[in-house]
């Protein structure tokens, strides 16, 4: 039990370590579910539950500063309890989703109170020219500010057991969990706002509206909008520089060879 709790904590930390390993999607339910299955000794169920939770969290991913529900803990605990109690698919969802919302709050506590000191310490090292110090802050900040927290949540949660977690979740009134879910729908706006803040100016603001309108009026998916956007970008860039030497965006050549 304790050993399993620790192992699951490590699995969760490995999941979060995707951010040290190339943002490689280790934290996705599909992967976490399978690894939890291995630890719990029922790989097929772990894999299947991972697939189910993956579909539930499909729309959760991070854009700019919008942090999605903490899927790792949700998946690992949801899967583990389902396997250990031998209950059905729904259990994984009814535990996984609220846990993910809850741990997101805990994670944010870490990001607001624990991580910043490391960032400021790195500034000090930089000012002294201490490269090693900067590197150290990088590693320690991520570890203590986020990674460890998630691991602890999972390990403690599993050790406390399903009923305890469930009891914790049950305390939460419906309007609160509804409210958190509403917040999840609003959060991406922060991400997009930060992206806009990096790109937008008066001259090009209308293209944001254009992309939005193409999607809502015509139901074009984002890749489709990107294709139309690329055409617009190429044509408009050409026109802007008409008269002067035209640059071919794709190839970086100075002249426009007719034989493509």
């Amino acid at each position, binding site marked *: 039990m304790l050993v399993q709790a620790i192992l699951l904590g490590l699995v969760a930390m490995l999941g979060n370590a995707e951010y040290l390993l190339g943002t490689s999607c280790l934290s996705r339910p599909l992967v976490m579910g399978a690894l939890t299955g291995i630890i719990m000794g029922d790989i097929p*169920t772990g894999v*299947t539950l991972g697939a189910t939770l993956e579909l539930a969290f499909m729309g959760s991913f991070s854009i700019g500063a919008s942090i999605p529900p903490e899927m790792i803990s949700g998946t690992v605990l949801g899967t583990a309890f389902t396997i250990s109690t031998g209950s059905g698919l729904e259990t994984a969802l009814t535990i996984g989703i609220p846990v993910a919302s809850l741990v997101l709050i805990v994670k944010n506590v870490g990001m607001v109170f624990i991580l910043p000191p490391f960032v400021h310490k790195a500034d000090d090292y930089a000012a002294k020219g201490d490269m090693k110090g900067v590197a150290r802050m990088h590693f320690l900040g991520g570890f203590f500010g986020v990674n460890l927290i998630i691991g602890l949540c999972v390990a403690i949660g599993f050790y406390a057991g399903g009923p305890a977690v469930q009891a914790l979740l049950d305390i939460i009134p419906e309007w609160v969990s509804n*409210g958190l*879910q509403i917040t999840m729908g609003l959060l991406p706006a922060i991400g997009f706002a930060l992206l806009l803040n990096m790109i937008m100016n008066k001259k090009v603001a209308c293209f944001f509206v254009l*992309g939005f309108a193409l999607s809502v009026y015509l139901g074009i998916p984002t890749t489709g*909008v990107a294709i139309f956007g690329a055409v*617009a970008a190429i044509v*408009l860039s050409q026109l802007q520089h008409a008269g002067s030497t035209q640059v071919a965006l794709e190839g970086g050549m100075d002249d426009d060879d007719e034989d493509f």
Partner: protein
Amino acid sequence: MTTKTSNAVESAASGEKKLTKKDLNKVVLRSLGMEWDWNYERQMNMAFCYSMLPVIKKLYDKPEDRIDAMKRHLEFFNTTPQLSTLILGITAAMEETAANDPSFDKESISNVKVSLMGPLAGIGDSFIWGTLRIIATGVGVSLASQGNILGPLLFLLIFNVPAQGLRYYLMHMGYKLGSGFLQKIQENGLMETLTYGASVLGLMVIGSMTAGNVAVNVPLVIGEGDAATTFGDICNTIMPGLLPLAFTLFIYYLVSKKNVKTTTLLLLLVAVGLVGSFFGILGV
């Protein structure tokens, strides 16, 4: 270009600093942790600086130069992590030029970083998160839902082979761009055109993602009986998705005009969600 060539000539004579392929690969490796200590204040700043350390060490000998460079790269940075190497590559090339040419304006390094990271994030997020991840998930889930362990494995492969391949490729391409094309472009005054084009594409993609990912529901009922509608439906009569659009632009306004901090916004949205839910104004 001329600067470049004359430098090359100099370099034969004096000891010009030159980054090798190996140096660049070191940066690629370090860039893997681009989101490890992502923070609300300056987002990817520490990881970016950490990734640049080998370059800084190689190019600059004097402590004040190194301090300068580290400070420069501890500034705000954010972009799609898997594509961050494009900017790292360009930055590395520009640092190289700066190290060899004392007259080089180092501020232009920060300028290029800042002007490219936004459009790259817009385009990159759409490609990496919106397309590549969805495909990998599609294949992965279709296998995994039968309990087949190949599901998660294929998922990771389909996602990471292109993603990390791109990460590697973009580093070297970025370096080449930074030492060739981009400088030429800057001399020709084409930088503006490039940013313009990239912004057009980036903004359209962000607009589309906003439409798909921001959800604001106002189920407030207006009218009675069969003919009753909700406030949300009336807004959709004006324009579908008007509420998410207006909401996103409002947050943008807070961010850009009122300089509201991200942490504050975060707490605000939690509060809005809870209050809205409590009074039944907002819905899931």
